[in-house]
């Protein structure tokens, strides 16, 4: 089995790994880099639990090959908090009880941060359509929407 050598940057840190050409970026993050924050809910791009930022774009990491990460900048949920200080989205998800089991939460956080970077004041509908690729089976989305709007408001004030 021939392995591919890849150098990339994850949450600002330089990383290097060898991976099988069949391994996805999600496999690599979890199995080789011990970053298990991104979850595999489907492996087919349908649930969003594996969402990460890949060279500035929101992607399903189960649909990216590990070998494609050469030279890439990758951001995962593990890089969202600033040391001890949670990102406002993380804080608001907790405050609004916008998670029950929490398996979708890393993907939702990454997707929501990407949304707020594009649109700092999204309305309910915009959030719903943006998150349409992030399945949550527990919450019915209501509290997630509220948490994102609340975080957006706080971030606008701080900005």
């Amino acid at each position, binding site marked *: 089995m021939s392995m591919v050598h890849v150098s990339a940057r994850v949450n600002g840190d330089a990383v290097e790994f060898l991976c099988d050409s069949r391994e996805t970026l999600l496999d690599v993050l979890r199995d080789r880099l011990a970053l298990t924050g991104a979850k595999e809910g*489907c492996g087919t791009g349908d649930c969003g639990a594996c969402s990460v930022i890949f060279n500035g774009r929101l992607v399903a990491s189960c649909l990216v090959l590990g070998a494609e990460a050469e030279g890439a900048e990758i951001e995962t*949920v593990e890089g969202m908090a600033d040391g001890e200080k949670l990102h406002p989205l993380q804080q608001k998800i*907790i405050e609004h009880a916008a998670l*029950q089991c929490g398996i979708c939460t890393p993907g939702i956080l990454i997707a929501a941060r990407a949304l707020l970077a594009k649109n700092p004041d999204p309305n309910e509908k915009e959030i719903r359509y943006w998150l349409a690729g992030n399945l949550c089976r527990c919450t019915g989305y209501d509290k997630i929407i509220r948490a994102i709007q609340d975080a957006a408001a706080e971030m606008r004030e701080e900005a």
Partner: protein
Amino acid sequence: MALDEGKDVKGGHDAREYDHEGEFRHVGTRPDRPDGVDKVTGRARFGADAYAPGMLHAAILRSPHAHARILKIDTSRAEALEGVKAVVTRADFASGLEGEDWNILENIMAGEKALYDGHAIAAVAATSKFIARDALELIEVEYEILPHVTDVDEAMQPGAPVIREGAAEPGVPEGMHPNVVRYHESGHGDVEAGFAEADLVIERHFTTEATHQGYIEPHACLAQMGPDGRGELWCTTQGHWNVQKLCAKLLGVEASAIRVTASEIGGGFGGKTTVFIEPVAMALARKTGRPVKLVMSREEVFRASGPTSSASMDVRIGMKKDGTMTAAEGTFRLQGGAFPYAPMEFTAMCAFACYDLKHVRQRGFDVMTNRPKQAAYRAPGSPMAAFAVESVVDELCQKLGLDPIEVRLKNAAREGTRASYGPTYPRIGLVETLEAARAHPHYCAPLGPNQGRGVSCGFWFNFGGETSVTLALSMDGTAQIAVGTPDIGGSRASMALMAAEELGIPYEDVRVTIADTASLGYNEISHGSRVTYASGLAVIKAARDAKRKLIARAADKWGIDPEAVEWRDGAAHPAGENAGDFEPLSIKEICAEMGATGGPIAGHYEATPEGAGVSFATHIVDAELDPETGKTTILRYTVVQDAGKAVHPSYVEGQFQGGAAQGIGWALNEEYIYGEDGRLQNPGFLDYRIPVASDLPMIDTVIVEVPNPGHPYGVRGVGETSICPPLAAVANAVSNAAGLRLRQLPMRPARILEALEAKADGEG
């Protein structure tokens, strides 16, 4: 709750535990959950997040046939593949099992026959996932394909393929097909006499499809077992003691040989109450002597975990012109896959539980088909019953020109009502939910064209079960609670709130841990909406036990009787003037000296609480139908449910909203689709479409609090009832929007269009 536990279901308990007086200090507040930071930072470890040195990866070979005799399995080529460390088949598991243990073994690894598409045939452990998967292709299986049946009604027909001869239990009526394995009948009164009193009797036929719990986290585990026969298992489960018990039986070892640790759990909804892959991973670990990780793919989750039953139902209800229901009768046929125990008695028992009926009768049939063994799904059996019954009630209201909430209020079960399934209700809150729904602005908001409003009630028993909790006090007066019920939806927060309430200490001073099977007495699965009720009651009782000990220490120190000491605001106080004049002793002061005053202080509870109060809900939904496409849009949704006492209201609301969302999916989109070949056609989230954010509106909630007499604070379980009303509520809304009634779920656009066309033809 899991039916296959064979446990008694009761609703009319007379356990009197409610003893709360005065205001709550912590209970009813909304603090951040203790595990919140772990869950937003990626630190929380779920089933697939565990790794071990030297770990192997496993994969399972599954039957592509719905029904086939296994003539031969040749694993030699797979075993010869570089990197493959072991292959297991049925021969690697215990023999001589009986009853449900045998059923579970047969389900997780086929014996003589493959019984459904996806049935496990063999499993491989190898040094990488890819090698394990490649090895599956080298296993040669010779099948003799047998005729199959996947539909519940067809499986009951004469001439239908027999899934298993001799599986029927006593009590099944004479002359039924051997696929009918169990029968239930209950009720009271004389239904024919009741129907004779009615001004209008409506009888209808309904069907619902099998749906999946749809938890986002696939089943995953990491197993180890050394040559000493001692094993460790890490897995995502709703009940690790049950996993321990089942793995031990299926592997033929003692329960204590396997220590099971529950990971964080990424959703369960009943689907993680049993075992699927865990015994397989253990068998591979035993054979290789190395840690084995086994994770299901999403496709495997759909094909080979435990979806819910599909149902075929007939319901007949009689009503007087003034809305009084005179009699009700229902027949409920459920298929539970290739094994017994479809929850048909729950369907039958829940069907008319909302109503005070003089004459009522319900029958249930448990039918086997070539599908995966059903598992519990949120209030198992109840949502389909509510769909049928509440649709007929709605139709009666329409035909008699009556308001659907008034009619339900007129017939609602109350304290003292003899339930349709037997017991007499203690204090219950159905009437309160109906009154709150009627008073809600949603109920009288104006509707536009093609829009309709639907109402439905729903019922679930709730459950107690074996429960063990330990509350240990630290030297600094903080508390550490070990519970045995995995935290699926914020239960650590509820436990901490109840402990803080009892001990009079800050919420932040309580740490709640989910203990492993070696650290605590047996704990029943987190199911039956039992966690906040039963583990909550156990936490309260353990805290009271600890408090008694704290009081004894203070009494000792003061040289007075423990009866003369009372606990208030986190401190021991002399009770009244006669007790003596002492400065209060805080929990911190008492704990700081615990070593010298008698040793460590901990409180315990080990028992089986029996007073889980039944729970009722009323839902209101507005739907809009697009006559061009047949698409239904949910515009507005309100859940009103009795929580007894909401310990952490945000998480109670979350349960209400989540149940409603799942119910909407069941009503509109979700279904297991089997092809002619008996294979599941849609084993993925693309084709099995659960509601996404853009499918739903905000979901309004009203928490009604009618204390449960069986819990010290009045708590009732809330997790399951919320999925019971939505199927009918949405169907009723569609009916009111378009003047057509769908009695088959899901109400997918094509079905609605067909019904619209049929209606137009009928009118034209």
